[in-house]
């Protein structure tokens, strides 16, 4: 595999097939854990666990299957931008919904 690093850039980085299998295995195990974790009652932590696993899985897909790890900075900025703008959409919308309950005044 080592000789592939000498390939010109535009061929793209050739990732060893073994790595793909490892990622695949992690993703499958992650799915199993998610399903299992959902059967255990953890209160609010159910969603936290589920989302953490989903995020790990998603990160692996983006980094390796989508080759982000081997891409240039611009592509990484694109991915970060997408997360940032989703965050804007979610957080500022929730600013309204979360604080609506506070708006009830018990006098002053």
């Amino acid at each position, binding site marked *: 595999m080592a000789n592939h690093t000498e390939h010109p850039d535009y061929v793209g980085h050739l990732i060893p097939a073994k790595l793909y299998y490892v990622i695949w295995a992690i993703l499958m195990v992650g799915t199993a854990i998610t399903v299992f974790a959902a059967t255990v009652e953890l209160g609010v932590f159910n969603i936290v666990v589920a989302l953490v696993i989903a995020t790990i899985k998603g990160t692996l897909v983006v980094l390796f299957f989508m080759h982000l790890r081997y891409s240039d900075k*611009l592509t990484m900025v694109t991915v970060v*931008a997408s997360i940032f*703008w989703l965050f*804007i*959409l979610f957080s*500022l*919308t929730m*600013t*309204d*919904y979360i*604080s*609506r309950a*506070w*708006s009830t005044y018990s006098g002053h």
Partner: protein
Amino acid sequence: MATAVQTVERENYLNSNYGIKSWLLTTDHKRIAILYLISITAMFWIGGFFAMMIRLELLTPAGDLVSSDTYNKLFTMHGIIMVFFFLIPSVPAVLGNFLIPLMVGAKDLAFPRVNLLSWYLYIIGGSTALVAMVTGGVDTGWTFYTPFSTTYSNTHVIGAAVGIFITGFSSILTGLNFIVTIHRMRAPGLTWRRLPLFCWSNYAAALIMILGTPVIAITLLLVAFERAFHIGVFNPALGGDPLLFQHLFWFYSHPAVYIMILPGMGVISEIITCFSRKRVFGYEFVALASIAIAVLGFLVWAHHMFVAGISVYAALVFSLLSYLVAIPSAVKVFNWTATLYKGSIRYETPMLYAFGFIGLFTIGGLTGVFLASLGLDVHVTDTYFVVAHFHYVMVGGMVMAYMAGLHFWWPKMTGRMYPEAWAKLSALLVFVGFNTTFFPQFILGYMGSPRRYHAYPPEFQVLNVLSTAGASILAVGYVLPMIYFTWSLRYGEPAGPNPYNAVGLEWMTQSPPPTHNFDETPVVTWEAYDYEHQPQEEVTVGHE
């Protein structure tokens, strides 16, 4: 004029081949720009016709010219057409399409076929919306507020929503093309710090297009589904929250205002520098202000909802952020003004429009501060104050910039000059007409006249008559360029490659440019707006 040059013209993008197919299947960004120019001009006149009907109806306090239903459809269609089918594509899709590859020294946009697809999507979306309007119209207001749009309106909401949905993708593809082109297609030596500000501001607008448009697309799709299948995501009668619709709608539609104004700001930066023969004052600040506006513009949307029933704390947050977005706009205005200092200024038509832009945009921007202020917004929101404010930004700002840009690059696009005297007259008419139309509306708004009223209390009549009078002047101001631009296509003086002696790669190729833009790929070794090294020969075309 009779002695129009009859020599064989060099091959250019207009005469390289003929026939309807060579236009409808073109992937040349310049031809697509012309296709866009024709289509959005048609849309402008349709939208303008609705505006005239609205103004005529408002001459008298009673609702006598048209019925209230018709009136509601008029302002809805005026809004939809002007916002989605004229303002958003105007500068980007016409001037941006034409100029960005030229300005970055590329042969075309990154994805020429996608560019053509974007025009077809625009046409399909536009036709869908127009069909919906012709076969009965829409009466929801361009904002489609639920539950009125999902449940109570009996008009063609789905058609209009689907039309906007499709056109949204046209806008996304244009934005995508611009961003990729500016990142990947710049000529050797053209670094980001040498990039013309027109590219910077279109880049910023393109960011909003690709990040915001999908959200309104999905939102309008949900509205269409709600109507079609009677589901209730936004309908309170079925447990939905109408405010969620407003959040999602304004998440796009507020930044969309910046899609409209940012490219206009880019045009102004080009023109101010050219006609004062100076490097722009504070290049980095003007460039970064564009990006700042694009990013901050996404953080302020709920200032449209201060009285809509959102929590007071959220209102506070959004009010604060709304003030912040005013700052980069102010920075731009100050920098443009400072660019004039110690310049060598000529009053050509584009410059007159640019002066008009700065003045009117200043008023539009400052009245935006009124609306960001919570205590004041409660009183003036949903009144004519808001109407006046956004027309100052959209018409006084964006349309002025579009007209400025159209005049400025008309010789480049067509190879012909427009008649300068007529153009100056029309610039003056637009400025006077515009202010007469919209300034009274600020006062009307503070007096409490609500918007979207078909009939109004008699004490508001004087100002409304004034406004309608101004609108007629404005209309003349817009008809004139239509006539003399068409006239100039045949009788205008040949322009030569660089009639204004401007800098920028687009002026270094012939007018009109050849299909491949440049005979050989340019290599940039100079800074942006390098007027110092541009020889200052007297301009041969023009009237001074």
